[in-house]
């Protein structure tokens, strides 16, 4: 087991933002309203949750070339309604018919389906609306990859590749296909517990943030990630996720069911104090971090 420790005491959180639950309206954050038609629920979540901390950090509306995006996205949320139309139009004699699929079903295929579910689309919409032209890292599908994104952001800030890191997690989990996935695991996850969520934090070098007069909202005290490879077809009942707070308890959501967004949502919703997060994920990550929020 390889334990990585990348605590970066010189980094500061200057903004946090989150959203939990589908049905939120990203319109106030869109640069061009007509882009809305290309957006699925995870895109909506990401744009809202990413825009809030950028505003909170008092960063310019155009982040430009010196800002990077580090994002972990959840499982792919194809929409049931879109797929049902395709499936219904593809059946002949009770079985899938390629001939029907290529004629009847294909003519019903909404081209927007291609855009709304792809895992790199939340990154596109965030970059587009915030005019973020810097480097990126986009991973999948759980909290372990959020920690890897955090490591990447931390390294990019440390070596001066960027000045601002937008680090987030997003998952549309109120979705039939995502729930199908979690329900077949061993042990299964109660689909009713899965919530859609997105959370982002803005990280900057402490000195730079102070120089531009940004309000420091917290810092990462320590962080460790480890990984233990295992056959994915074996039972995994080791999953657990804990978020503990000291001196306050401001968490509004069960932290264990927000996928890659859980830690960022916790940071965005917590009151000042110390927040510690521990995760042992189904994909065999172990990670923990401690944050001081002001």
């Amino acid at each position, binding site marked *: 087991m390889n334990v990585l420790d990348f605590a970066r005491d010189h980094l500061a959180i200057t903004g946090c933002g989150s959203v939990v639950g589908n049905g939120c309206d990203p319109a106030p954050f869109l640069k061009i309203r007509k882009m809305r038609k290309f957006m699925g629920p995870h895109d909506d979540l990401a744009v809202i949750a990413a825009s809030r901390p950028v505003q909170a950090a008092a960063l310019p509306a155009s982040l430009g070339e010196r800002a990077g995006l580090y994002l972990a996205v959840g*499982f792919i949320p194809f929409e049931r309604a879109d797929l049902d139309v395709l499936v219904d139009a593809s059946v002949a004699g009770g079985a899938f018919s390629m001939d029907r699929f290529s004629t009847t079903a294909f003519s019903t295929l909404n*081209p927007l*389906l291609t855009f709304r579910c792809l895992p790199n689309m939340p990154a596109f919409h965030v970059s587009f609306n915030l005019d973020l032209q810097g480097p990126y890292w986009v991973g999948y599908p759980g909290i372990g990859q959020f920690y890897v994104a955090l490591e990447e952001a931390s390294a990019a800030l440390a070596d001066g590749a960027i000045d601002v890191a937008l680090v987030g997690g997003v998952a549309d989990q109120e979705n039939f296909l995502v729930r199908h996935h979690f329900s077949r695991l061993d042990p299964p996850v109660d689909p009713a517990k899965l919530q859609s969520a997105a959370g982002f934090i803005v990280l900057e070098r402490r000195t730079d943030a102070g120089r531009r007069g940004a309000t420091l909202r917290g810092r990462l005290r320590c962080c460790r990630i480890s990984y233990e490879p295992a056959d994915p077809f074996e039972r995994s009942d080791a999953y657990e996720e804990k978020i503990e707070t000291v001196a306050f308890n401001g968490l509004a959501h069960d932290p264990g069911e927000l996928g890659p967004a859980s830690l960022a949502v916790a940071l965005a919703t917590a009151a000042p104090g110390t927040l510690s997060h521990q995760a042992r994920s189904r994909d065999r990550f172990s990670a923990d971090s401690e944050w001081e929020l002001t």
Partner: protein
Amino acid sequence: MRHRVVVTGMGVVAPTGQSVDEFLDSLLSGRSGARRISLFDPASLPTRVAAEVTWTRSDFRDRKIAFAMHAAEQAVEEAAACGSAPGGEGGLSLGIGLELFSMEDAVAAKHGDPVPSARRDRLTFLQTPSDLCVSMLAARFGLTAPPATHVSACAAGTDAVGNAFHLIAQGRRRWMLAGGADSMINPLGVAGFCSIGAMSTSNDDPPRASRPFDRRRNGFVLGEGAGMLVLERLADAVERGAPIHAEIVGYGTSFDAHGISEPHPEGRGAFQAMKRAIDDARVEPGAIDSINAHGTSTPKNDLVETLAIKRLLGPRAYQVPVSSTKSMIGHLISAAGAVETVAAIACMKADWVHPTINLDEPDEACDLDYVANVARRHPQQYVLSSSFAFGGQNASILLRHWPPC
């Protein structure tokens, strides 16, 4: 302290070769892997051609997992051929394609068929999560460092290799298995690309359907496969006597922040990614000896990529060979960057640049030296390889000949 990073193992599963030697031969002979789709009956879909891998094994339902495992076996075996394996704890950086969605299963589920009870079948019924591939590779090769799973679409393969390079160079990992795997040649994958008009509809002549930079190009040809590389510190490789294929010296990424399905009209993001890779290596653009282009054969990409290269290299752009691997193997989506990195390294080692085939009537606006149709002997010190994703994520990686001249 920045470590120098070298490639000590490579593996590939491509439409035109399932070993690096076979793949290189096919590239230099300009052979196309495109043909009529055989994996399913494309029936009346607008596009009925693809570059398929001829694959007789049936170990995994999701072909990209099988491709990844086979390419990784080649790479790891080669890296250890000197008698010792890379030292220290290894990690995985993988660019991986979309979860496989089965229309057949969807119909069965709709008609009330039960979800299979066997664990393996249950986990691949209806939708196969792509992180299975990561877990299987990590378990198979004992990769205990936290893995990185890249889902930046067409840029994912280059991102996986580039990220692995940075992880080692910055001292955060000791060695990495890095690459990409994808297969979207299935009904929903092909139909999805058809619905947005991204693919070539030249169904009557499949080997000539992918024609990057040609005036008659009309979209990309979908391919499938995997490319995997073993990356490690130069000092470690030298110490254990490992074969060194190339050095990786730079990696850069950018967002277009422009359009959801079209690149920035001036190639701003493509330029930024290439420039960042070169800056990362601390070399000047004038050092670039050849470019392995993204070169998709779509009207917009090829034009914009040409503009970006001109901006990067200035007047010298006309003297630098630019070739498109996709002219022969199609677009491998999340595997593209990794397989094209393998192609670029193999060609660089051999002192050749492979051709861009089917370039018979160059587009007036695409006026660089694309190595039309015939491979060319061309020693190279630095090769730039780029991938530009649908959604405006751009990645470039800079490779250096080994040994340096």
